[in-house]
């Protein structure tokens, strides 16, 4: 596709519910990131994939958060037993190669706004 696509655009979950957020990176993009952006804050790093390999998951806030990218393209961020503090916009970013992003910046999706009630 022309850009990084994220779905759903909005998600309302009841506390305790599991959610799955999807990211479709630009075709052929090797590097993929997930960020969490709370209201009025800057994005915070969650995890990074290079192809299907999850090379850094140091930003995942708890073991309720899990990300996968089994075929090296689409990625899913799963949050189990959602809590109110999980309410945020979840952003996905990608680049053709880590070096391209390194030198030119990354392409971000529009995000999924998660509201936990």
């Amino acid at each position, binding site marked *: 596709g022309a850009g990084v696509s994220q779905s759903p655009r909005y998600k309302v979950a009841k506390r305790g519910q599991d959610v799955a957020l999807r990211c479709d990176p630009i075709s052929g993009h090797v590097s993929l*990131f997930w960020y969490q952006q709370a209201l*009025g804050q*800057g994005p*915070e*790093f969650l995890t*990074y994939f290079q192809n299907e390999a999850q090379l850094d998951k140091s930003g995942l806030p708890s073991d309720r958060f899990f990300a996968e990218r089994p075929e090296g393209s689409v990625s899913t961020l799963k949050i189990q037993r959602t809590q109110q503090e999980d309410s945020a916009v979840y952003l996905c970013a990608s680049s053709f190669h*880590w070096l391209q992003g390194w030198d030119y*910046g990354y392409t*971000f999706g*529009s995000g999924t706004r998660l509201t936990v009630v």
Partner: protein
Amino acid sequence: ELKVEQNPLFLSMQEGKNYTIYCNYSTTSDRLYWYRQDPGKSLESLFVLLSNGAVKQEGRLMASLDTKARLSTLHITAAVHDLSATYFCAVNNYGQNFVFGPGTRLSVLP
């Protein structure tokens, strides 16, 4: 732990005026990024600054980097309404881990 600060956090300015946004970071890093975000939209990459003394310009925006002072500036010249947005700086922490600043919300008034 790398910390990134921006100031001001909110900036309201009149069209035609000049202003500077500052980004300070706490530990050594070899590159710094500036992004723009419109409300409800994704982040758009503006500049990547790769070395001490780097300066890049695009239209009315100019970014610079002083790695010794751990400071980057984003200078706005003769602001126009279209520049209204939130501007973030982001600093490489390690590997592919980046730390973003809190953002500067800019409003350009007619």
